[in-house]
């Protein structure tokens, strides 16, 4: 009956060092999974789920999302990657590796009889100092931020991904897309909505032939072949109701005595919809996008009027189009008196051109030159589904990075530069503190080095030597700023296996990404370190 020893609970319980070690092990094994995918020369993972679907990816968040982790501490790390993905969009792998390293070192300290609370407060202190130091010395000021820097940031993020070799091409696409969707809010703040960039995937050709299209694209086709393929000066009606034969509701019964009445009834069913369509067309609409179905019998009215009608357009796309073209999503056409139906021309959105184009083995409808806000579409080409999916994920990461860079206007050097600089600085900082937190801060500093070390290991370079050289550079720059001018940006060039000035070399990341990943990693490590007791209750038995 009871397994919990003296406590007599229905389940198992572990306390103290056992739990800590177990949690640490779980976290480290999660981190080990993603470890080899860090950095420009990181490798990909192939994940096969229980249905047999294959995902090939290098993105930490995606890998962890697909893993079915059972251990609670492991789950905390997976959530951590997810959080980083939501808040920043990139750096998901490094945040997990860092958190696991912090935990590992924290656990070693506990074994040396240092109380977890002291370690926790040490980590918190170190984090605070690290964030302060990044903001003070490591960021690259806003005035130096130009388009070329954004392209660099995008390329840095892409480098580690499958599109690395084509990063020149894709970085240009990503930067242009994000810059084009710049919108100003009524309160004056500037936003770069990620959702305004639509990504469409089409099989065939090579990834170099991916293009950026100014306008919104939807992955749908015209409803009938007789419709024109292109309309300029389009007036777009956005409908959110069925254009099908009108059906009577449940609870309404049709009783006819005369068979001819039945025919008339059927005719009327059609006519109700026909009248609707004619009202819409009369308002001047020549493009009709409908979120629901359009009956085949109704299509002829559109064909006769020379309009494009598209059915089953996803509702989210419709909303976006409504915003971009200044139209309104119409739920019902009832007029203010409730007596009749009308279609107000002001509900129509307008765009310079709406056209259907062949792409790969399918068709795509483009809505170009939208009047209200800019919408951008990236059409990705590639050999197969997995490749396209991975390209989409990589592009998404880069778009996020550019968005952050644009919104916060500060960059830091990549290639392990920030981590090494912080590590050197924190070690100095620790020795100025005479309290028990000192040890924890030193460990925090050591833990940060896991990033450059993993980067070097993944690139098959001599990690020990490279990291040592890197630390030496940073030490010079911090002890003697005059002599070490520019050395605070020193990072690793992993292909050549050299220490270079990453900022000049074009390896940069948004500062906010680094700050947040440090913060999240520390929070996750603290959350797990605080646990000293794990109670696992037996699953409830299903009643037979």
């Amino acid at each position, binding site marked *: 009956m009871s397994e919990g020893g003296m406590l007599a609970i229905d389940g198992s319980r572990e306390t103290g060092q056992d739990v800590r070690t177990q949690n640490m092990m779980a976290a480290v094994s999660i981190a080990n999974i993603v470890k080899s995918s860090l950095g420009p020369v990181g490798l990909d993972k192939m994940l096969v789920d229980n249905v047999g679907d294959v995902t090939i990816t290098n993105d930490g968040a995606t890998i962890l999302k697909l893993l079915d982790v059972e251990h*609670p501490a492991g789950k905390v790390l997976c959530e951590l990657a997810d959080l980083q993905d939501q808040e920043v969009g990139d750096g998901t792998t490094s945040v997990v590796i860092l958190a696991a390293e912090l935990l590992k070192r924290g656990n070693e300290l506990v074994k040396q009889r240092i109380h977890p609370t002291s370690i926790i407060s040490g980590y918190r202190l170190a984090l605070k100092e690290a964030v302060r130091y990044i903001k003070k010395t490591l960021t690259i000021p806003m005035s130096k931020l130009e388009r070329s820097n954004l392209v660099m940031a995008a390329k840095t993020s892409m480098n580690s991904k499958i599109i690395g070799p084509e990063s020149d091409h894709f970085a240009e696409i990503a930067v242009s897309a994000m810059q084009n969707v710049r919108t100003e809010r009524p309160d004056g703040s500037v936003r770069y909505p990620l959702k305004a960039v639509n990504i469409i995937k089409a099989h065939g050709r090579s990834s170099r032939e991916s293009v950026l299209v100014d306008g919104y694209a939807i992955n749908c086709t015209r409803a009938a072949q007789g419709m024109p393929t292109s309309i300029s000066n389009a007036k777009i009606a956005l409908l959110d109701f069925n254009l099908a034969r009108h059906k009577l509701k449940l609870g309404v019964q049709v009783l006819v005595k005369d068979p001819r*009445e039945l025919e008339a009834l059927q005719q009327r069913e059609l006519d109700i919809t026909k009248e609707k369509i004619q009202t819409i067309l009369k308002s001047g609409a020549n493009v009709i996008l409908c979120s629901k179905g359009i009956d085949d019998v109704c299509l002829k009215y559109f064909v006769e009027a020379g309009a494009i009608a598209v059915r089953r357009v996803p509702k989210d796309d419709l909303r976006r189009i409504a915003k971009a073209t200044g139209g309104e999503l119409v739920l019902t056409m009832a007029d*203010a008196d409730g007596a009749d139906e009308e279609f107000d021309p002001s509900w129509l959105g307008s765009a310079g051109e709406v056209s259907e184009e062949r792409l790969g083995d399918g068709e795509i409808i483009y809505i170009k030159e939208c009047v209200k806000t800019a919408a951008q579409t990236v059409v990705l080409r590639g050999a197969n589904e997995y490749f396209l999916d991975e390209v989409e994920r990589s592009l998404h990461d880069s778009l996020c990075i550019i968005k952050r860079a644009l919104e916060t206007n500060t960059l830091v050097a990549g290639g392990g530069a920030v981590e090494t600089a912080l590590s050197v600085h924190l070690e100095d900082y620790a020795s100025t503190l005479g309290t028990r937190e000192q040890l924890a801060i030193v460990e925090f500093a050591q833990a940060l080095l896991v990033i450059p070390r993993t980067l070097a290991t993944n690139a098959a370079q001599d990690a020990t030597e490279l990291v040592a050289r890197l630390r030496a550079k940073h030490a010079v720059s911090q002890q003697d700023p005059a002599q070490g001018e520019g050395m605070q940006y020193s990072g690793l060039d992993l292909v050549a296996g050299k220490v270079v000035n990453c900022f000049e070399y074009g390896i940069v990341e948004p500062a906010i990404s680094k700050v947040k990943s440090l913060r999240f990693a520390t929070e996750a490590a603290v959350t797990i370190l605080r646990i000293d007791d794990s109670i696992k209750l037996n699953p409830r038995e299903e009643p037979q």
Partner: protein
Amino acid sequence: MAAGGSTETLRKREKEKDVRESNILAAKAVADAVRTSLGPRGMDKMIQADDGEVIITNDGATILSKMKCMHPAAKMMQSLSKSQDIEAGDGTTSVVVLAGALLRSTQQLLSKGIHPTTIAEAFLEASQEAERILESVSRPVRLDDREALIQAATTSLSSKVVSGDSQVLAPIAVDATLRVIDPSADSNVDIDENIRVVQQVGGTIEDTELVNGLVFRKKGAAVSGAPTRVENAKIGLIQFCLSAPKTDIENNVVVSEYAAMDRILREERKYILKLCKKIKDSGCNVLLIQKSILRDAVNDLSLHFLAKMKIMVITDVERNDIEFISRTAGCTPVAHVDSFTADKLGSASLVEEVSLGSGRVVKVTGCEAKASTVTVLVRGSNKLVLGEAERSLHDAFCVIRCLVKKKFLIVGGAAPEAELALQLGKFAKTLPGQKQFCVKAYADALEVIPYTLAENAGLNPIEIITELRRQHAEGITTSGINVRQGKISDLAEENVYQPLLVTISAISLASEVTRMLLKTDDLVGVQ
């Protein structure tokens, strides 16, 4: 039950001593389980519930309520922590730890051959004396002394995961609780009825805010043209549906000619328009619609009309929330359209849809109604943090409630327990016979709180306890463990205060449970 079943119904009889022993052991095991989560530097527990859900918490009541204990004595400890939660809302861990320590001391007393009844009586006396002593070292507080209240709430929050944000949460807890009571008249606060805590993922805990009104965790009905911001709102709350009426199962609408189809369509439009117009005529510009199971509460048509009339619509309001909403906004729920008149409407200065993190919420602020209700919108980066933040906030509310119930504060940091140990030790010497022995043991048991607090903070417990004893013996009644600096200091200067009621209730409840377990000498399993 058949006659002569006396031997059958009483399945298991254990020896008196064994029963007491096993009860005490089981209860002590529970106390040991939560011991490490006491105090500002306490550790967390990770509990995987029977449905697989994981929670990480530091709140004693939550930990115990999630643990599935089998032993009856262990269950008593669970309900002990629950009653402390109900009575005081805070100190749920300390009450269990205290009970565990008292039980341990009774074990020693029992082994010396003192009769359980004598111990129980002596403990009763000791706990009464303890209450008196505590009152003598407390200080009164006025409810308009906001600073002192915030300080008390901060002390309670300091042991939680969210302690880093206590400067945000403590004032919120104080303001929320004070708003729902009449400080001069009330002697209790109904927290669950008057304070609504709404969780929304996204942002950080620092973004948590107090809303004088309502927060709906949903967006307004998404129809283009519908307003998302209404100033000087007139709020209507309806419990009827704005959709085409349905016939009963037995009845049918019969269509026998094609013109009738048009009529049906037109009638539906007219019917709904009539409802909407009636609502509009009353002056309403924000409409809350109760969730309906039998029929659609709204349909496309009515949303469209309401959007055209510039009425903001919030659908799917839960039935349970109706009362809270009507008290907050000052509106009367309307069950039929005929009774929808202007006097049923509530008012607010602003109703606005705002986007927060990943989702959108509708905020109703500036309600004119005199009803004393508030909503706290809790933000956090993930569900675990949100859950813990809500539990911590609840504790902070309870602290303020305690102060409303009993307007006295006492210093924290184990100072009261140390003082009690000293004073009760003196008191014991005035007692005759075996009682003296028992009360002395009781006094020593109370030192478990400073001991555990020091241990959890990574300090040396023996050093701390001896220093604490010394200072109290010198008459510094307010000296306690300053966990942050890791030493003993005068906590009155540090402003670490907690409500007197929390400590009193913890001591009296723990003593009661101990006495009850002592007096139990038989365990009978009835099947």
